[in-house]
Structure formats: structure tokens, C-alpha cells
């Protein structure tokens, strides 16, 4: 209840608002400073994404092991990674891992972020792959068996080429989601745009403009890509939804 009252009070304030404190010169001054971090943010996004894409396969194939205890362990490990906050995982890798005896290694902030966010998102991407593989028609498996293909040939020539393209829009969505999680890495000292904005705020003792710059940059980058993914999705639906049906009818 208290929240609602505060919210309505907030709306009243907004109605009579005049941006009292906005300073354009600081905005333009902080823009190049913050934008320098885009390289790192992009680099980190791509590194995490590639890692997650590759590691997703590991999860997918681990889940396919036809052994109940192993499947159980893998499922719950995935569930554990998925349902705990990536921020804590990041802290765990950065602060705790170097202290564990024997296996402890200390990683640079960048590598740490790639590992933590990459593993976190690979569990989601593994699920995407799985849904793609499961959507491949059973007849395709039987056909490849009938053609006496080896397991490797079966996967690389028959199953994966059919399973992966329909998942591309979903993977694109995860790229955008991941891009939005990347500023987490600034907490352990990766010089992304959020970190630079905080630095700028600390130097000039004004957080308003630099943080708004960060928000605008994120919006400017992720909104067009979201539209792109939506278009891609429509295209894929046309191609893989209806054409497949059509082919089936012809056969």
C-alpha cells in the first residue's frame, strides 16, 4: 500500500515537473567519455555469446546421455545455474575461486565475466538447442539410420542443419538479453560503459547525465536489434513453418 501512495505522489511530481537539474554541457561532455567503453562492452558481449553458444552444445549433449543419475545431475546443475543470480556467480568466480585449494585459479576480470555470464547463458542456449533438435522429425532419424550414416555424419549432415536454423531468432533474443546483462561485469572492474559512467559521476560528482547516456546507448543499440530479431522471426516462421508443411504435403 505504502508503495502505491508513494507512486501516486511520484506521478504528481512528474506532472508539475521541470527538469531542474539537467545540464546539457555535462551531457555532451560525458558522452565521449562513456562511449569509449563501448568497445569493451561489445567485445565482452561477443566473447560471452560465442562462449555460451559453444558451451550450450555441451549441456545439450550431456542431457542426452541415456543414464538416469547423470541426466538427473545435469538437469539440476542447469537448474541451479539458471535460478541463481549471475551477479553472485560473478562474485563467486572472481573472489572465491582463487582461494579454493588446488583447483583455484585467479582470472582477470574480463575472463571472469566471460566465464560467469557465458556459463549462465549457455544453460538457456542449451535449452534452445534441445528444442531445435527435438523439433526435427523422427523420420529424419530413421532415414539416417536406414542410410547407414555414422553417428557423426548423422549429426553434422542431417540433424543439426535442420535443428539449428529455426532456433536463430531465439538465439538472437538471447544475444539482446545478454547484452543487457553485460553491465554486471562493471561490478568486478571491467571498464564497460556503466563503469565509465560511474567513474565520470565520481569525478564530477554528478551521476544524472552519465547514467542517462548509458541508458540511451543501451536503448539505441538494443531497440533496433530487437526489431531486427522480430523481422527475422517472421521470416523464419514463413520459411520453416509453412514451407515444411507444404513439402510434407507434396511428399
Amino acid at each position, binding site marked *: 500500500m505504502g508503495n502505491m501512495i508513494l507512486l501516486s505522489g511520484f506521478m504528481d511530481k512528474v506532472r508539475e515537473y521541470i527538469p531542474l*537539474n539537467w545540464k546539457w554541457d555535462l551531457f555532451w561532455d560525458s558522452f565521449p567519455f562513456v562511449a569509449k567503453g563501448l568497445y569493451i562492452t561489445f567485445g565482452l558481449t561477443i566473447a560471452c555469446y560465442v562462449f555460451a553458444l559453444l558451451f550450450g552444445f555441451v549441456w545439450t549433449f550431456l542431457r542426452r546421455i541415456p543414464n538416469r543419475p547423470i541426466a538427473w545431475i545435469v538437469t539440476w546443475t542447469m537448474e541451479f545455474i539458471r535460478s541463481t543470480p549471475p*551477479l553472485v556467480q560473478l562474485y563467486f568466480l572472481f573472489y*572465491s575461486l582463487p582461494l579454493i585449494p588446488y583447483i583455484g585459479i585467479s582470472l582477470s576480470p574480463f575472463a571472469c565475466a566471460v566465464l560467469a555470464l557465458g556459463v549462465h547463458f549457455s544453460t538457456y542456449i542449451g535449452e534452445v538447442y534441445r528444442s531445435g533438435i527435438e523439433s526435427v522429425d523422427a523420420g529424419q532419424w530413421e532415414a539416417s539410420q536406414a542410410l547407414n550414416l555414422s553417428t557423426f555424419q548423422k549429426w553434422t549432415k542431417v540433424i543439426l542443419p535442420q535443428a539449428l536454423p529455426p532456433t536463430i531468432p531465439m538465439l538472437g533474443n538471447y544475444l539482446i538479453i545478454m547484452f543487457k546483462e553485460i553491465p554486471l561485469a562493471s561490478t568486478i572492474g571491467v571498464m564497460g560503459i556503466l563503469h565509465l559512467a560511474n567513474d565520470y559521476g565520481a569525478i564530477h560528482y554528478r551521476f544524472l547525465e552519465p*547514467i542517462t547516456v548509458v541508458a540511451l546507448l543501451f536503448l539505441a543499440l538494443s531497440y533496433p536489434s530487437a526489431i531486427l530479431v522480430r523481422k527475422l522471426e517472421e521470416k523464419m516462421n514463413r520459411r520453416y513453418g509453412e514451407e515444411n508443411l507444404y513439402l510434407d504435403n507434396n511428399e
Partner: protein
Amino acid sequence: MRGMGITLTVLGGSIILGYLMAFIAGFCRLSNNTFIRKFTGFYVEIFRGTSLIVQLFWFSYALPMLFGIELGSDLVAGILAISLNYGAYMSEIVRGSILSVSNGQTEAGIALNLTPFQRMRYVIFPQALRMMLPEFGNYLIQMLKATSLISLIGMTDVLYYGNLLRSSNLAIESTVYLFILIFFFIIALPLIFLTRKLEEISKKGVET
């Protein structure tokens, strides 16, 4: 683990406010009034387009400065940011599932001479709610994960005390984050089972 109270408060607060926001924004986007529709669309795109962490910082640092108002406390800023963010995501689900209820149902409602409100309340919404349930369950877990971020804006949640312990007590330094991970997992477990239950409910008795 003294921060548990704060973590759970923020979680509870943002769940309630987030669902509220989701339904309000979801219905507003379906409204016939162009202004309301465009305005909510704008809100949803802004909050979906920027990162939650940036929003949190914005709510706690930039907003009080820009409008010269205090949101009361970090607690309010945290709950507001998380619930507005996830409200925006979930409003898309509300909108999507209401739209996916077949047109024949609306027409049947008109044929039975129901008012638009009755049509929504008794015919469309119960069917749409079913489709929303599993996704809502997933977002519960997402929100739980998001609550860990509030330590970044200076709130004394579990993670904050974890950081404190780490810097004060070297002996448990390596295990403290593991404990926090397990703590979050224990909170998440009932949510995971709830999600599975919701999936079952939504599958039961409906085709497609």
C-alpha cells in the same frame, strides 16, 4: 544472513507491483485509445530496451537529482526499478496471450450480448490467463535473480552482508558466495516447482 528480510521484501514487493504493472500495461496496449496505446508502448519499449542494472542506477542516482525528489529510500527505488522492468516484459505476455485467444470467442461473446467488460472478464481473460501462467512462473525466477542487484545501489541485502563477511573474515572468504548461491537456490526451488505445476495446469484440458 541478516539481509534475508530485505531480499524477500524486495522480491515480494516487486512481484506484486510487477504483476500489477503487467496487467495494467498489457490491457492499456490493447486499448482503443491511440494515445494510451502509444504511451504504454513507449513505456514498454524503454524498459525492455535498457538494462535493468542501468535502470536501477538511474532510479537511485539520477531520478532524485533530475526532479529533485526523493523516492523515500533505496528500497522504493529498487522495487520500482525491478517491478517496472519486469512489468514491461510481462505486459507483452499479457498482450500476446489475450490476442491469441481465438476471434470466434470474441464474436460469440458479442452474439451472447455481453458487454465488453463481461466479454473480457468471463470469456477471454480466463482463457488467456491459462496461457500466461507458465511464462509468469519463469519471470518469478527472473525477478528473484534480479533482486540480487539491489546490493549495487547500497541496500543491505544478502549479498551486501556477504561482501561484508568476505572482507571481514578471511577464513570463510571462499565459501561465503557459495552459501549465497545456495541460499538463492533454496528460495528458487519452490518457484521452480510452482512453475512446473503452472505448466501442468495450463496444459490440462486445453488443446494446442
